[in-house]
C-alpha cells in the first residue's frame, strides 16, 4: 500500500491514467509527419515503375534512406497509438487488450521489416 491520497494518485492523469502524454505524442508525430510525408509520397511515386536496380538506387541514397526510415518509425508509432484509441472506443475487456497488443505488434513488425529491407538496400 502506498501512502498517497486518492487525489494525489489521480491528479493530472485523467481517465487514461497517463495524462496527456498520448495526445501530445500524436500532436508531435503529426507535425513531424506533416513535413516528411509529402516528400516520401513523391519519392515512392517516382521510384514506382522503375526496374529493381532503379528502385535500389533510389532508396540507397542516404537522404531517401533516412527519410524512409523516419517515416516508417514515426508513422508506425503514430498508427499504433491512433489505432489504440479507436480500439478503446469500440472494444472492452479482453478483446480490447488483445486488439491493442495485436496493433502494437503489427506496427513494430512492419517497422522492423521495412528497416531491414532499407538496410539491405542502402548498405
Amino acid at each position, binding site marked *: *500500500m502506498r501512502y498517497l491520497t*486518492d487525489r494525489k494518485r489521480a491528479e493530472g492523469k485523467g481517465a487514461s491514467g497517463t495524462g496527456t502524454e498520448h495526445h501530445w505524442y500524436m*500532436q508531435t508525430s*503529426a*507535425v513531424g*509527419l*506533416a513535413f516528411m*510525408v*509529402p516528400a516520401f*509520397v*513523391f519519392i*515512392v*511515386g*517516382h521510384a*514506382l*515503375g522503375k526496374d*529493381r536496380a532503379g*528502385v*535500389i538506387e533510389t*532508396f540507397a541514397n542516404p537522404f531517401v534512406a533516412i527519410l*524512409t526510415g523516419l517515416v*516508417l518509425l514515426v*508513422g*508506425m508509432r503514430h*498508427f499504433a497509438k*491512433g*489505432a489504440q484509441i*479507436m480500439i478503446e*472506443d*469500440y472494444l*472492452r475487456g479482453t478483446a480490447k487488450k488483445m486488439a491493442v497488443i495485436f496493433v502494437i505488434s*503489427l*506496427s513494430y513488425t*512492419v517497422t522492423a*521489416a*521495412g528497416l*531491414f*529491407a*532499407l538496410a*539491405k*538496400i542502402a548498405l
Partner: protein
Amino acid sequence: MSETTKVERPLSPHLQIYRWHIPMLTSILTRVTGNALIVSTMLIVWWLAAAATSDSYFAFVDGLLRSWVGDIVLTLSVLGVWYHYLAGLRHLYYDAGHGMDIPTAEKLGWGLLIGSVVLTVLTIIII
C-alpha cells in the same frame, strides 16, 4: 485506498441514429483513412523488402502493385494520405483552440473533402 468499483461507462455514440453532417463525416473519415493506411504501408514495405531480396521476387510484387488492382489500391492510398494529412492539420488547428464554431467547422470539412481530391489529382499528374 479507494475502492475500484466497476462503473458502466458509455461507449462511443451509435452512428446509425444520427443524421450525417459534414464535421461528423469528416471526423470519422479521419479515423477510417488513418487506419486504412496500414494496408498501404504494408504494401510499400513488402515492395521494398522484395527489392532487397531478388529479381524474381521483386518482379512478382512490383507486378502486383502496378497491375490495375494495384493502381486502384495505390490511388486510394494517395487519397487516404492526403485526406488524413489535411485532417491532421485541422486537428492541430482545433487543438490550438480555433475553428470550433459551426460555420468554420463546416467550411473546414468541405476543405478536407475537396482538398484531398485536388491534392490526389495533382500528385498523380506530378508523378
